């Protein structure tokens, strides 16, 4: 296949993951946040499958399948169920308004492009662009974690951050499988953990707003 097409398609899918990352920043309702996350995971799965195809690396199809089944379907579904069960499907406030958050997001993307492109002169163009996109997704996930106070949306922010990591890992040629598998696995473990946490938090405070947790801080710094 022609190199330009390979390149453009990978670029397009990577940009989709990034766009959903932006969308996550301004969604207010928990349900909408979860659907957007599912879409992002779906786009990630496409990116992994495309990389598997052009790199001729069949093990990346496994990564794609994990992203699709686990992240795009199972996690949003489970979190939706949890949210319904706990009765918190109302809108949640972000720490900053939409405008400033998006602005910071744009700055972060520019920053990662300026940081990554010069240092990867030796790598192929495909890897470079992909890495810049992946790093933007990571930083946007981090931003989402900072601007959200609600436990569920923070978890989604963390998983969006991990989506960025997987996007980086699949874009680098010949990355051993262990990393992708383990990332997926750690998400699974994290999910169970979070579930346990939610229930305990619910039992004790009747709310998932982390503010209520901050009343007892010991002698925090």
């Amino acid at each position: 296949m022609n190199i330009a097409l390979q390149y453009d398609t990978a670029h397009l899918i990577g940009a989709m993951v990034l766009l959903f990352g932006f969308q996550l920043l301004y969604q207010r309702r928990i349900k909408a946040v979860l659907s957007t996350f599912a879409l992002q995971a779906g786009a990630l799965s496409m990116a992994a499958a495309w990389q598997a195809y052009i790199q001729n690396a069949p093990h990346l199809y496994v990564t794609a399948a994990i992203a699709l089944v686990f992240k795009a379907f199972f996690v949003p579904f489970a979190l939706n169920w949890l949210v319904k069960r706990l009765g918190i499907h109302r809108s949640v406030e972000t720490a900053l308004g939409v405008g400033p958050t998006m602005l910071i997001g744009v700055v972060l993307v520019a920053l990662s492009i300026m940081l990554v492109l010069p240092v990867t002169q030796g790598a192929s163009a495909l890897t470079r662009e992909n890495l810049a996109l992946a790093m933007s997704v990571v930083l946007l996930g981090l931003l989402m974690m900072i601007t959200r106070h609600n436990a569920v949306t923070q978890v989604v922010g963390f998983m969006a951050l991990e989506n960025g990591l997987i996007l980086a890992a699949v874009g680098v040629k010949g990355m051993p499988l262990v990393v992708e598998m383990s990332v997926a696995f750690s998400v699974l473990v994290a999910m169970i953990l979070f579930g346990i946490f939610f229930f305990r938090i619910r039992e004790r405070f009747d709310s998932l707003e982390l503010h209520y947790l901050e009343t007892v801080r010991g002698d925090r710094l």
Partner: protein
Amino acid sequence: MSAHLFVLGLPLLSSVVLALVSSLTTSTLINVAGTFLTFLASIALLIHRPEPSLWLFIDDFNVSLVVLTAFVGFTTSVFSAGYISRERKEGHLTRRHLRFYHAMYQAFLFTMLLALMANNLGLMWVAIEAATLTTVLMVSLYRTREAIEAAWKYFILCSVGIALALFGTILVYLAAQPVVGPGPEAMAWTHVIKSSAAFEPALLSLAFVFLLVGYGTKVGLAPLHAWLPDAHAEGPTPISAVLSGLLLNVALYALLRFKMILAANGAALAPGPLMVAMGLSSLGLAAFMLYKRDDIKRLFAFSSIEHMGIITFAFGMGGALSNFAGLLHMTMHSLTKSAIFFAVGIISQISGTKNIANIRGIATSHPVLGWSFLIAVAAIAGLPPMGVFMSEFLVVSSTFARQPLLAIPVMAGLLIAFGALIWKTQNMVFSKPSIEASQTYAPWALAPMFAHLALVILAGIWLPEPLVAWFKAVAGMLG
């Protein structure tokens, strides 16, 4: 089968067995026996070293940390036996919690040993991530509001840290891949270090920044230390002992492996100044924070931040003498800090409080415990003739020889921390006793602490020649 597989297999096996055993006596016995056998197997590594594979390897550097981890794992399991049985008697923990606790303790040891022995950088990352998960579960063991909050904070901060470390690891692979070729070889530390001179330096520099922030969170370096005091204070005390004594070392070890790759490259950003800056800020911040603590476990958690700062500073300075001092301090801090937590565990159990203001006059009500606690605190504060004094002296003097100006903040930090620790401890050990003398503890519960203190004092007076030669060789490796 070679010894290193036993070192990994025994804790894993014990973890599975302990998940199935519900009797408290049996499970503590299995726990102690499992860690003891792991320790014996780790000693065998000193004599016979397996061939490095793409996944696991043993060299001069990690073998000493493996033995230290196995040793502290063993002594802590002995201490934990006494601690846990009392918690059970007082009804703080249910039988189900205990089964879980023991299984997790062994799983935690397994992940730390795996992280130390991993040759594949991805595997090392997985192991450290798993170590985070197991400790999160143990920190939340008491299910109190504070414990859950501490565990949540620990989990969120360290997960983000560990995610950034993975990004750094991917960047290192990206740098290695054009030179070593795609595949598992480009992730194997032994292969990467050999050819790192040909790597793209800018890429390695970018990777190191992510790794420093990522693994640095786990080491508890300021300003990324917010999780550390809470996690130490709210979990069971044996876990505080292994967190401070072992897990922080493992995270720092991971960081040092990457530092070695950068040093071998030569053209990449010098990791030293960054580590020096973070080390100094941790030392300075923790030294002042010590004064305001009123929770005994938080006090010593901040002291851990301070000491990790000193160690990071020493490795950041680099050079044979500073690296030697860093390695020695890593070992001494591990032994002393876990000894302190053993004492703190007993003290908080017999006094029923963790509040420093309510703990007074232990030396009068419980002389043996009080005096040995005082000796342990004197050791961590850096009084001669203990081992910590030796290593701190080496850190300061090696800094003086090369960068006299940097030695001033180090000395200031050490003195400020010293003042805080002695001031806080004085009231706890002397003055009018607040704990009833009728509150007793099992005499053998002090044995692990005595073992640690004996080693620390011995190291302060006399370091065996082979050990010195060993540390020197490793210090040379670290560059």
